[in-house]
């Protein structure tokens, strides 16, 4: 059983389309972070959401943290080929922030391909 389930696992769309990817859990998280990872490289932080119900926007990307702090979504408007990559969600489980540890639990990711 995966602590953080990401869906879909693979997504292939045409340039200009909108898309949403999801990160779901049965556990509560203190925070969720979205990263983007290119092949053979490290995850690059896109955003951190901390408050239940929080919405953050980063240009064409909109991130939402669920009210119950168990899920998050990433919506991309008018996708471009440059958006192609692996999108990872990672969270600090509620209770794991004690002692300032903040270890991250990762999902498996959504591999997005945007075709020109």
């Amino acid at each position: 059983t995966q602590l953080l389930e990401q869906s879909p696992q693979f997504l292939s769309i045409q340039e200009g389309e909108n898309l949403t990817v999801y990160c779901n859990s049965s556990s509560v998280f203190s925070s969720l972070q979205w990263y983007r990872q290119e092949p053979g490289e490290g995850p690059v932080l896109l955003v951190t959401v901390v408050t239940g119900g929080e919405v953050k926007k980063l240009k064409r990307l909109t991130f939402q943290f669920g009210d119950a702090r168990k899920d998050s979504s990433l919506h991309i408007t008018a996708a471009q080929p440059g958006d192609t990559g692996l999108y990872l969600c990672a969270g600090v489980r509620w209770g794991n922030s004690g002692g300032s540890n903040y270890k991250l639990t990762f999902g498996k990711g959504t591999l997005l391909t945007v075709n020109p």
Partner: protein
Amino acid sequence: EPEVTQTPSHQVTQMGQEVILRCVPISNHLYFYWYRQILGQKVEFLVSFYNNEISEKSEIFDDQFSVERPDGSNFTLKIRSTKLEDSAMYFCASRTGTSDHEQYFGPGTRLTVT
């Protein structure tokens, strides 16, 4: 923009050999982490480090693994006797302070054990 750096980018070693992976965290960060990612699998937590001691380690981080901050800038992961299953990407990450959730990752070291 400050970033986490890691060396080497790729390390090939024979089974049973010792390897040291090096990281330079962002300079004003106080919390340091090692994660690994086996090919095709998710990123997994190995160990967290603060105030010159391990604050938490996963079940993966057994007696073959150790971490050290030998000076004010480097953070190292040592594997004493490598196994084939240690082959993976190893990522270092760092974080500023007590209430800051954001972790910044380095580019990784690809470890190949033959």
